């Protein structure tokens, strides 16, 4: 037997559905708007067109680069990216000698990747720190100005960074920073214990001559340049995490760092990786600032203190003087390769995101 639940009798509210004659003005107005299917379709079509334009532009760029680099593509083929000649006098590898028609691109690939890696290694932790400070800990009156300054840093033209690097950063590295690294990396006991890794000692990461200029300097400039990009985008995605998420963690007794970790960083991680990818893209393609401090020598040395060259800066430096067809085409092929490297690096980063988030419960709405 069911205990009685009081049921309110239907007190004569209209039961028969009446015709739409009584429809209110608002209803009539809304009905007059039709089914809007056309509007929806048009909007969808327009957006697709926009997306399609991107494909077209990318395809056109690739096609043009391939066409223009035909001479070297045909002459050298794939070995363009890994072969080298040996200098008859010094017995050193010889990669790039426009005068004698030697064009192998490995040092530029190497320079681009190494400087970008240095940049990421320095900029990612720093910019995460900046973003966390700005969103979670900064006193209110400082937040606006600091956020504004971060964004301002991202807007400084790269040639200005280059100038600053030449006059301030390079001497600073030469006098104060590099010696510290050199004394650490060349400490006798480290060399003795880990010399076989080729990371320490004279042929290690900080061996050789300390010029100030070089790969390390280029990496540091790049780090300074991409830091504001990563920091301001990361700040943006972290601000977008709803406050209720932080409250959920705080109410469990989480400390400030734990709250940031489980409620903020977790929610924002895809956006954070996205901003790192954007920063990396800038680092890979950066031309001017790198060209001003990397030293522009087409060589591969273990030491980060040695000079080198990058794909973007060799193109910028030599394109106007490239008189022979082969030289010009070699530079364009490097451009093509830079494009591919960017795509591959982006792809790898996406793959990483996918691998990290794969096990996570799907969020459907």
């Amino acid at each position, binding site marked *: 037997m069911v205990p009685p*639940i*009081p*049921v309110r009798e239907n007190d004569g*509210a*209209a039961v028969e559905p009446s015709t*739409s004659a009584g429809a209110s*003005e608002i209803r009539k107005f809304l009905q007059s708007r039709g*089914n809007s299917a056309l509007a929806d379709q048009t909007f969808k079509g327009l957006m697709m067109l926009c997306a399609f334009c991107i494909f077209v532009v990318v395809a056109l760029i690739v096609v043009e680069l391939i066409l223009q680099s035909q001479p070297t593509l045909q002459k050298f083929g794939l070995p363009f990216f890994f072969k080298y000649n040996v200098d008859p006098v010094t017995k050193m590898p010889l990669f790039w000698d426009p005068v004698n028609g030697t064009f192998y691109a490995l040092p530029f690939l190497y320079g681009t990747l190494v400087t970008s890696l240095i940049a990421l290694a320095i900029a990612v932790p720093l910019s995460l720190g900046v973003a966390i400070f700005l969103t979670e800990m900064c006193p209110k009156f400082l937040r606006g100005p600091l956020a504004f300054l971060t964004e301002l840093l991202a807007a400084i033209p790269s040639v200005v960074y280059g100038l600053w690097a030449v006059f301030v950063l390079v001497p600073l590295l030469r006098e104060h920073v590099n010696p510290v690294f050199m004394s650490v990396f060349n400490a006798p006991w480290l060399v003795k214990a880990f010399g076989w890794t080729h990371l320490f000692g004279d042929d290690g990461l900080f061996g050789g001559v300390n010029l100030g200029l070089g790969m390390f300097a280029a990496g540091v400039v790049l780090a300074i340049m991409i830091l504001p990009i990563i920091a301001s985008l990361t700040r943006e995605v972290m601000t977008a995490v709803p406050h209720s998420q932080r409250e959920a963690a705080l109410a469990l007794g989480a400390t400030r760092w734990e709250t940031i970790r489980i409620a903020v960083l977790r929610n924002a991680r895809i956006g954070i990786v996205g901003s790192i990818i954007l920063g990396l893209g800038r680092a890979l393609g950066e031309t001017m600032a790198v060209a001003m401090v990397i030293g522009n020598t087409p060589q591969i040395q273990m030491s980060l203190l040695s000079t080198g060259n990058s794909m973007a800066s060799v193109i910028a430096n030599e394109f106007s003087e490239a008189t022979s067809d082969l030289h010009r085409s070699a530079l364009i092929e490097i451009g093509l390769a830079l494009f591919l490297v960017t795509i591959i690096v982006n792809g790898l980063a996406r793959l990483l995101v996918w691998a990290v988030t794969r096990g996570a419960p799907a969020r459907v*709405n």
Partner: protein
Amino acid sequence: MGVGIEVTNLNAWYGTNHTLQDINLPVPANHATALIGPSGCGKSTFVRCLNRMHETNPVARVTGSVRIGDQDIYADASPVEVRRRVGMVFQRPNPFPTMSIYDNVCSGLKLNGFRNRKMLDEVVERSLRQSALWDEVKDDLKKKSGASLSGGQQQRMCIARALAVDPEVLLMDEPASALDPVSTSKIEDLIFELKSQYTIVIVTHNMQQAARVAEKTGFFLNGRLVEFDSTHKIFTNPSDKRTEDYITGRFG
């Protein structure tokens, strides 16, 4: 005036999860129909199928037919058109945080290009009065953001937002679960009053509430409609043993 809803062989999925199975249910026009059932049985999913909201979920799928009035909403209408006729109040309040209370309430009209200032004012006041919020917010309608209200106030604002477009059908997914007894009873009075003009489908865990406002009640269990009958019958003399177990609290 409200219109009736005829649901035939409705099936719904989330990915491979067959959430609703062969639902057949006639919702009478100008009545309130209550849906009850244990958590996770598919009540929200069912309600979301009535205004084609279910399909906005990328993994979701629906088959079957839903006729609202003389329109098959899955065959004869665009989703936009359907949702203009079928208002919805969600289980959790979802105010637009960047809009004032006023703009929240009339957002449905404004986005459709309704520009008559005087009439907008009237509609906002009427809707907020209907949802029993007017007295609390009338002084800062345009000053306060919709998100600055308390949870219960937000929910009543969302009810007002749904009412403002004067829908023919009003879907309410546990509209009162975040409300205090006073606002709850105001909302119940509102539902009772609105029945003369709207067809109302209300999901509720509160059986007294179902009994108070609805003429018809449907009992869902594990994605199936177990029993659908007059509220009186369901609560006094259900024909299915499972319904009886549920409403008497003996349910496992």
